């Protein structure tokens, strides 16, 4: 049973990382890029505002960070729980 409890701990740790990542994913794109743009309109960036920057560049950069962070964390988590590929 030890193996099973480790597996479920592994899975819930994975799901937690996914949830946090997806919250950030949604905030930078749908949030800063679209819905919250009016709130960020005071922050000027190169002739326009921060929301425009997030919509056209910022969100893409954050997406990249999210994916690499996930890969790095998960590969580490695999080893910690002994479920990595030998």
């Amino acid at each position, binding site marked *: 049973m030890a193996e099973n409890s480790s597996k479920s701990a592994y*899975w819930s740790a994975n799901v937690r990382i996914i949830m946090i990542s997806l919250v950030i994913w949604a905030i930078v794109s749908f949030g800063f890029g679209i819905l919250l743009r009016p709130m960020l309109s005071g922050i000027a960036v190169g002739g*326009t505002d921060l929301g425009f920057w997030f919509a056209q560049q910022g969100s893409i950069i954050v997406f990249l960070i999210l994916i690499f962070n*996930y890969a790095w964390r998960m590969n580490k988590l695999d080893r910690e729980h002994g479920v990595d590929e030998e």
Partner: protein
Amino acid sequence: MDQFTINLLFVGASFALYIGIAIWARAGSTSEFYAAGRGVHPVTNGMATAADWMSAASFISMAGLIAFTGYDNSTFLMGWTGGYVLLALLLAPYLRKFGKYTVSEFIGDRFYSQTARIVAVVCLIVASTTYVIGQMTGVGVAFGRFLEVDNTTGLLIGAAVVFAYAVFGGMKGVTYTQVAQYVVLIMAYTIPAIFISLQLTGNPIPALGLFGDHVASGEPLLAKLDAIVRELGFNEYTAHHSDTLNMVLFTLSLMIGTAGLPHVIMRFFTVPKVSDARWSAGWALVFIALLYLTAPAVGAMARLNISEMMWPNGGIDGGAVTVQQIEEDQRYDWMATWQKTGLLGWEDKNGDGAIQYYNDANADLQAIAAEKGWAGNELTNFNRDILVLANPEIANLPGWVIGLVAAGGLAAALSTAAGLLLAISSAVSHDLIKGSFNPGISEKGELMSARVAMAVAIVVATYLGLNPPGFAAQTVALAFGLAAASIFPALMMGIFSTKVNNSGAVAGMLAGLTVTLLYIFLHKGWFFIPDTNSFTDADPLLGTIKSTSFGAIGAMINFAVAYTVSGMTKPTPDHIRELVESVRVPRGAGAAQSK
């Protein structure tokens, strides 16, 4: 050397390169045909995925749509990159662990149902074919320009080339060819952008130049652009004008669709390990981001250049460009070249010898027009899909850059069309014929049926591409909506829920696909045949939700139906629960097998 010869040289040389690689790595066994023997490094795979992914829609069409709309079309940028987050976190590692060749094999096994597998194949074929229609639109534009023929002839020639090319090899040929295509297309996209960014902002990095200062006026580039388009009566470039709900749903549809498209998902079957599948998605997005961070700069700078060309003497007061200038000044040669394709047009309606370009639907400009004797906008046709290809000519860049862009545009369209045709052909030959109707088929017979399926798909796509339902990127967006509504939810529920059963998955996919397809056909015409639509996207059936944005709602319907039906039918058997448990951990991932 004239421009035509230069184009021919660049396009010819790039084709020779791809075909050379395809012959060198020609697929032998079926296993190699589908998944390249799984020996592909994550960086290589990421680059090939990027080439596969960035199609005519990204390369040829997207910057044009951003240029003429501005901020509101940021949806394409966020949507087509944000999907990789979903892919990397929710699908890629588990599907790699599962270790089969095709998306529908996973769905068939996970939902222990031949029906589920066939429904998945149908969803896949519908989405992929729609996608190929968008590619054919782009291929038509690119070939039309580079062979200096009209759009239809360009499309027919392009279709023949795509077919010959896709039949050549399997994934392995395609993988290394696509690495070459990526290099060609990214150079073709960024080099002219660097030149233009230097001209306008003095910054060699277009992504930074976009937020930099316009050298000629000293103002920030985007502020300058806003001022110019405002003067001509258009919506301000950086402002938000479109409906917010539709914008959110459209972005979401593109994101979910990205993670539901078979030809992209298939890529993650070809890496050696589960951990590599995670990295692969990241590398793919790195290579994609190089283009996607440049695209908004290309769009904004082209819009500025075009507006200034049409009003070369400092805005409306200085007077419009004259017909004589367009005909004689070599800076305007691109207009005559593109006029031949039928995708650019102008008409001196009021006979004053000048071409006034402005928004004739704007009341303020109508007043000015009445005063000055203009008779409406005289730049009568500017197809959005020509912008990227025409951009180096508009900016008066050297001939070799124009040749390079022609080669890049074709690389983008070809690589994606080939990847999609491969996905369609493997769905038909592997999943339908071998998996369902004739399991005893020989390997040779399977390869043959794969090629026949490719041929049929390309004929259908070419036929529909003659009357496309929109610009390349818009047609492609419809394909994403279909993938979002059908494939993605089934895959995600298959991994993250043990409760969803065979009946639930089948009902969910059918509901998502049918409702979305219906919504699209109601707005775009039945089977995309013009004038058979009952609604338009300007005045959609449901509130402000356009047909291109409906995929997100289709996906929600899919999830809801699948859970409801699963709750009312027999629970999933134990061996399927074990399968799901095993897919969730990387250990024990072996080489993939095929049934």
